[in-house]
């Protein structure tokens, strides 16, 4: 075994441990939250706080087991995940920026422009991921991606708002953009 894979295994089991702790915390938080739900059981004997408490308890228990598996040699019966061993985080950041910008801007600049921006940012992330390096910012390419994004988002907007009468926000009240 090379030191590289050993290092990888170490970081994976650290991730597994973190995940287990996360599940445990979530479970405990749910149990605590359940005690704050008033129990008005009526005829049934179990009220609205019963299932939350149960789900919280089972999740806590699962968390403990996940931690135990992580500490005793890693998850059982696990397939090696697809793709690269380490994540390409700068590409991830581009796509995340696109998705969050979309959430922040959709009501102000409208569906079409907001989705166009999200599309171009996501494409930028995916393209740098293909090259596996950040590369210099190619303005021409970015404008081309914006245009393609617009060419997808605009017809989608028209189709859903005009044909199917689904409410999507526009920049203007004309219904076209």
């Amino acid at each position: 075994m090379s030191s590289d894979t050993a290092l990888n295994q170490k970081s994976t089991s650290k991730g597994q441990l973190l995940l287990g702790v996360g599940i445990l915390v979530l479970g405990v938080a749910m149990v605590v939250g359940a005690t704050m739900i008033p129990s008005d059981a009526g005829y049934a004997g179990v009220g609205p706080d019963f299932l939350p408490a149960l789900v919280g308890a089972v999740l806590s228990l699962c968390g403990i087991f996940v931690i135990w598996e992580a500490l005793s040699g890693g998850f059982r019966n696990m397939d090696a995940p697809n793709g690269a061993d380490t994540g390409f985080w700068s590409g991830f950041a581009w796509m995340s920026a696109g998705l969050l910008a979309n959430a922040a801007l959709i009501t102000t600049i409208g569906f079409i422009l907001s989705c166009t921006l999200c599309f171009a940012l996501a494409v930028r992330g995916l393209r740098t991921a293909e090259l596996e390096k950040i590369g210099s910012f190619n303005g021409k390419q970015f404008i081309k991606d914006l245009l393609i994004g617009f060419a997808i988002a605009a017809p989608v907007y028209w189709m859903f708002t005009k044909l199917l009468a689904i409410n999507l926000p526009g920049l203007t009240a004309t219904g076209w953009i």
Partner: protein
Amino acid sequence: MEVWNQLMLGFATAATPINLLWCLIGCAVGTAVGVLPGIGPAVAVAMLLPITTKVDATASMIFFAGIYYGAMYGGSTTSILLNTPGETGSMVTAMEGNKMAKSGRAGAALATAAIGSFVAGTIATVLVTLFAPMLANFAVRLGPPEYFMLMLLAFTTVSAVLGKSTLRGMVALFIGLAIGLIGMDQISGQARYTGGVSELLDGIEIVLVAVGLFAVAEALYAVLYEGKTAESQNKLSSVHMSKSDWKKSIPAWLRGTAIGFPFGTIPAGGTEIPTFLSYATEKKLAKDKSDFGTKGAIQGVAGPEAANNAAVTATLIPLLTLGIPTSNTAAILLGAFQSYGIQPGPQLFQTSGALVWALIASLYIGNVMLLVLNLPLVGMWVKLLKIPKPYLYAGILIFATVGVYGMRQSAFDLVLLYVIGVLGVVMRRFDFPTAPVVVGMILGPLAEAQLRNALSIGEGKWTVFLERPMSLTLIVVVLAVLVLPRAAKYWSSRSNRRIA
């Protein structure tokens, strides 16, 4: 004869021009979704759920059903030509189909997949026509305790039996149940886990979770880990089967149908098990095994493809008659029914008979449409594979926005969508199954209501589950499902040790 009359009425509804058009669009969208990697039928139906606010129930159910089994047809094209299955049901097809395509027989593989899907889909639809009303008649007698136990059975199989790790399946199921708890309690109106955020009072939309877990997570995973994976595409040859191909395919189709159908009706979630079983059967029965794994055996494509489609069609039986989804897509379809205020279950055949029979009739029509769409027109779909990956995944994000924003017009939901997407990436990286999350989230609130109703009937006593024969039987089944596979494993490892 009553079934026959109902079915004819169903055909009359399904064959109106507007419904035929919805069926055709559904089949086409489904095929495209199946062909494109990174997007499956569950997420496609989820993204299009907002149309339920405007389109009438019959038309949209016909549309969604078209997407559902259309994707099964399209999925085989990708797995034969690219060796990356478009959806999970085609994983096995990829093994032999890709080998056949590499040795220049892509056309025959595509033909046996499409015709096999048609044969299996049609036979399964006939069986649905015959058995669904019968099961509905029986299921009318089930009360809340039995329903709760049936749902418990679905939870058990989807989390503990399928998948590689019971622990990870349980975590996924309970995260789904936890998401389902957020919002107002249906019985008492009590707010739970909303943290004072008013957007959370109505709960989290199914669309949001499904699109986040499947579409957004897929795109994020691709950018994080799969940037450089290169794909080679096999050449398409003429879509034609020789006489010996037919002779090998026909029995494989029939066997695949027989294996696939029962698996769709039980809450065993998904098509992986029947397709693998069918593949194993074909390999065992083949007289000449030399083609398997080398040049590619046509039976190894024909059987699993038929099993896949039979299972998919059969999932409609528990969905329509019991209201219990046994696959991801069926779970989303249940959500579609719910957004019309229709609760699938034994009464559905009485209360919404016209809708159900139109839906069943549309399955017959859709299968014929898909055969045409997939055999002569296969070249058109293959062109979809030429879309560059960055544009494909980024485009999926636009459609994800339509689905999630269109459902509730809330920008807050788009932030949640991103959070669920990240959760999906983590789950995929650490090999957690995602199906239990969706099933838990959709069935959780229903199961809770049944549980509390059952306990009301029993005046607060849990023994109500033991006193009713059907409910007791189901408890035994749940225990058997939990215990038997483990016991079998234990005994076989013990006897192995004894031999050693």
